[in-house]
């Protein structure tokens, strides 16, 4: 398995996917060597059958800058060359290292993730004569509205050389076909969610006890000040054009006109953050919108749990794991029809990202009708429990079997 990010250093769906997939595949009895850039430290404990191998240490700086700024926006002109250079160097190192390990480990199959490992994957496929599976969690077209030709070319090369291409939704599948990938190569495998991690009662655990104790002592439990009496609508994701944060604010404006006691939380950061802050002020929403910036996983769990509604108004979303996380936390979700996750989830209100009034209309209804929220929570958690990473891993294993045959692992 050729990766780029792995916990604790993750900036999106790719890291979560790699972590959960390798872990579950290892559970299924596969031996996996996961190659990734050296992070200096690795908090992920190794599972039996799963080895994490760090490739090179020195060239990582650009990656961190890249991660911190989340995604290219204004600063990308400067960083971009450094990122592509780093990717190139990493792939060279990766190739050498995997080839060296292969002598001893005798790999059966290579599996790369996104464009970042494509070059190494292709080189290794031909050098070692191994089948190559390439997963695309997103394409350059999903990440930015002015795609960088160099990366698109790498992606196209990946589609050409890979023996099987895995992608996370039918939506991305069609994009890959449009990029020239023959349909027979593509398998759609949806992401899952580790629902236990986001289950409300686990998170509320210690604090709920505290609240109970406080109530027994006759004191009113202390809630965060912003939470009191107000309904909370949550946006969580990179603040960039593709995720639709501007439409979120415009809809918020419409909601507040009819239903003033709502707080809109915007978690995450990105190139549009300054625009968003200015917009919230010019719309007169300063007291209804709160920006949380980049938040930890721990905080994200808390924030899902207190939200009355999670909104993902993305214009383009290959999958959208956060929607499943919110669902696991028994929070009703509103997702755009142009997201991969809307292909699998039924307990969701699906909207057109451009239909501001339609979104606002439905947000109000969800906030207003308690019965609806209860029903959505109940069905949502049941559904989240069905969308496991085990399923993802099993489907991935089937793809491996297509290439290597049974009994070769």
């Amino acid at each position, binding site marked *: 398995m050729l990766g780029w990010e792995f916990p604790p250093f993750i900036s999106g769906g790719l890291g979560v996917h790699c972590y959960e997939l390798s872990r579950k595949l290892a559970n299924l009895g596969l031996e996996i060597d996961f190659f990734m850039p050296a992070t200096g430290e690795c908090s992920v404990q190794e599972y039996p059958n799963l080895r994490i191998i760090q490739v090179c240490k020195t060239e990582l700086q650009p990656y961190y800058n890249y991660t911190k700024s989340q995604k290219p926006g204004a600063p990308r002109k400067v960083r971009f060359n450094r990122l592509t250079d780093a990717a190139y160097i990493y792939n060279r190192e990766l190739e050498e290292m995997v080839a060296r390990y292969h002598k001893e480990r005798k790999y059966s199959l290579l599996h790369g993730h996104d464009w970042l490992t494509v070059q190494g994957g292709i080189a290794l496929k031909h050098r070692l004569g191994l089948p190559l599976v390439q997963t695309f969690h997103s394409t350059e077209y999903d990440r930015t509205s002015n795609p960088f030709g160099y990366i698109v070319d790498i992606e196209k090369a990946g589609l050409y050389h890979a023996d099987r291409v895995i992608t996370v939704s039918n939506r991305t599948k069609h994009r890959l076909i449009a990029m020239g990938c023959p349909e027979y190569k593509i398998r759609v495998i949806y992401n899952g969610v580790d629902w236990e991690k986001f289950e409300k009662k686990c998170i509320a655990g210690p604090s709920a006890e505290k609240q109970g104790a406080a109530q027994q002592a006759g004191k009113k439990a202390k809630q965060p000040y912003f939470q009191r009496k107000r309904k909370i609508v949550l946006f969580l994701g990179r603040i960039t054009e593709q995720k639709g944060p501007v439409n979120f604010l415009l809809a918020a404006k*419409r909601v507040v006109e*009819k239903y003033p006691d709502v707080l809109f939380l915007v978690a995450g950061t990105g190139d549009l953050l300054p625009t968003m802050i200015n917009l919230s002020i010019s719309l007169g929403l300063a007291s209804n919108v709160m920006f949380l910036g980049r938040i930890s996983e721990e905080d994200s769990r808390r924030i899902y749990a207190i939200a009355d509604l999670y909104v993902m108004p993305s214009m383009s979303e290959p999958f959208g794991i956060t929607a499943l996380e919110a669902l696991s936390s028994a929070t*009703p979700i509103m997702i755009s029809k142009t997201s991969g996750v809307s292909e699998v989830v*039924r*307990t*969701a*209100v*699906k909207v057109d990202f451009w239909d501001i*009034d*339609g979104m*606002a*209309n*439905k947000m*109000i*209804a*969800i906030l207003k*009708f308690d*019965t*609806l929220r*209860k*029903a*959505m929570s109940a*069905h949502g958690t049941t*559904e989240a429990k069905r969308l496991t990473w085990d399923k993802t891993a099993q489907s991935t294993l089937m793809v491996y079997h297509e290439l290597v045959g049974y009994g070769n692992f």
Partner: protein
Amino acid sequence: MGAMKICMYFQVHQPLRLANFSVFANGSEPLLKTYFDEGLNRQIMEKVAEKCYLPANRLMLELLEKHPDFRVSYSITGVFLEQCRQFTPDVFASFQDLYRTGRVELLSETYYHSLSSLFQNKLEFVHQVEKHKDAISQIGRTGRVFRNTETIFSNEIAFMAGSLGYTGILSEGLSSVLGWRSPNYLYNVAGAGGVKAFLRNYQLSDDVGYRFSSKSWNEYPLTASKYSNWLAHTSGDVLNIFMDYETFGEHHWKDTGIFEFLRHLPAEVSRHGNLEFSTPTLAAEATSAKGEIDVPYPISWADAERDTSAWLGNEMQRECFSLLQSLESQVKESGDDELLHAWRMLQNSDHLYYLSTKSLSDQDVHNYFSPYESPFDAYMNFMNILQDFKGRLEAKGAESGRIGVE
């Protein structure tokens, strides 16, 4: 012993679908236009007329003219009639033609295809049955048999039908009600006086209604001669074959051969000396009940559960239903005909049916029939409309109260 009577009965209904209601609407449009999507309703009515009602009625007329022993029954809702007259007058006329043959029975039901039989106060139910009888008289006179919305049935409903003068009532031949007994006889109903229950033979009905075009069914393809053979080898007094009329051309498309099946059915049935076509009213006169059934809780023909859970199975549905019910006295006191009509149109059981969350656990017919993306979308829209309606009603009440004071 006489021949076994075959009662074929078809439900004819199209819901009045709700408009996509926005809380940002300014309220300048007339009430019915704001709540109901005229364009969509017209479009669906015209589509189904083309695929089902017109060709099916044409064929039925042909069969009735050709076979003097052939009889059928229809249950046509008021909501359907209203749309039919407005959007597809030729369908309306073709039903009149069918009635004129004298061998078509029209069944009674609630005008609004509502769950008013389950209201606490039964006066609304009685009113809707009367209103249906009035409306259907444009086509012909109803017989003396009642069929409640989606065959929702209980001892109490049977009793009400009896008190309204009906001799028979249609229901579902549930084995949990019948036990070892066969649905192919008429039964008295506990505490309901002399009214006779007709129980649907769901096996034989669903062979046509559901399974006809299913290639994975081991009896596929079903021919008229095979089917009439099955009928002839069934024992009993009255065989009740009930289904949606849309079975012909809409649930099963024309190319499945469903019309050809129907075309040959009367001739094939008449080859068997022990079978004859009848209608519920005739059968109720000629046949005596063979026992008594006891149905304390309402049953229906819907879903696997065959109870009222298709409409009242979850919290969202019960909340909407109780809100609707709670508005009754206010609506009636307002004396506003437009509000009253809208309130009754909102009682359409279909609005509640779309809120069912059963479709979330398995793909079923709720999805097939629903114009919504999910039950949650359906709830939001329906509840928004109900809230808007309640708001208008209160505004109206405040207004008239003020006038009263002056």
